[in-house]
């Protein structure tokens, strides 16, 4: 079972096409293992990116050094998955 402990989902808003291209390039960097939940579309349009815990520092540094604004949409993904599991188990009982 894949666990998502410490994984975060970042809401990223690129302000120009250059930043969007940078975000798209992230997708192809397989070593970071990031996963776009919502792909970057156009400037001002939010993109949501799941970042595994080991890649968090690298991704945040990259965003900050390129002046790309972001916020943390989900602080700890596994916590939410656990809550969802509990919610599913309840009606089953």
């Amino acid at each position, binding site marked *: *079972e894949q666990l998502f402990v410490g994984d975060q989902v970042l809401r990223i808003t690129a302000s120009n096409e250059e930043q969007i291209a940078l975000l798209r390039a992230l*997708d192809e960097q*397989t070593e970071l293992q990031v996963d776009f939940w*919502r792909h970057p579309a156009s400037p001002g349009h939010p993109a949501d990116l799941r970042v595994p815990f080991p890649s968090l520092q690298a991704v945040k540094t990259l965003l900050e050094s390129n002046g790309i604004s972001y916020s943390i949409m989900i602080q700890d993904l596994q916590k*939410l998955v656990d809550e969802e599991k509990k919610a599913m188990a*309840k009606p089953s009982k």
Partner: protein
Amino acid sequence: TKRSGSTFNFASYHTIDEIYDWMDTLVADHPDLVSKLQIGQSYENRSLYVLKFSTGGSNRSAIWLDTGIHSREWITQATGAWTANKIAEEYGQDPSVTAVLDSMDIFLEIIANPDGFAYTHSSNRMWRKTRSRNSGSLCVGVDPNRNWNAGFGVAGASRNPCSETYHGPYANSEPEVKAIVDFVNNHGNIKAFISIHSYSQLLLYPYGYTRTPAPDQRELHEISKKAVAALSSLYGTSYQYGSIYTTIYQASGSSVDWSYNQGIKYSFTFELRDTGRYGFLLPASQIIPTAQETWLALKVIMQHTLNHPY
């Protein structure tokens, strides 16, 4: 003990077995309206089931709906189940549903990517793709919404098997996609094709693989406007609408581009809720409101399809 559809909790997320069992009860509860067809098998040999809503006739014009082609988008399978029940319940009650079903059939595939869906319950909640093996790569699966024969493999999909948007080795390589292609082509009289995704709160129409406007863009835009107005009227949920290319991003090999190019004019794709807080982990408490508001938009599209034969 006779099973009953009334014990199924639509306000909860369910496994594939629970949904498939419930489909049988829906058929049993509405034998004159609902039947279950198997249109193929998935890569891991799970059945691909379609619910057929029909009041009779032979090869009537029809509306296609699918949910869950991206397996982790759980709100869509849940909305699919709710919608199936709603169609069955509203026939004979709601004049617009009755009018549609008196002339047309509706086909609904609730779990369009069963292997992926089962995998989201057992191993990886965030799984999006199919579960097919890719030769020469350790990475598994193809994005089933980049695998259709419409601008296949051009920009807007990845050639990297490890990517979430990997288009696959060739168009229709995924049995889950091929089954729908064969079904729609063999039927030959599908007039609307609606593929339901989440999340982003969008109603989109072709094209995704090219910026060239679809020949019917004006009409599709007008329908979208009405459908979104109906959807938003219930809970004020904010939706955007437009072509895939202009509203979100270039996406090649998608289902509705394919269906549109097959001559199915009323081709749409939804991106259901979230509001940006939970993404694919939308709490179960939002299933019913999401399904309810989506239903209003679906009715607009279905009604328009009925009233504008072509």
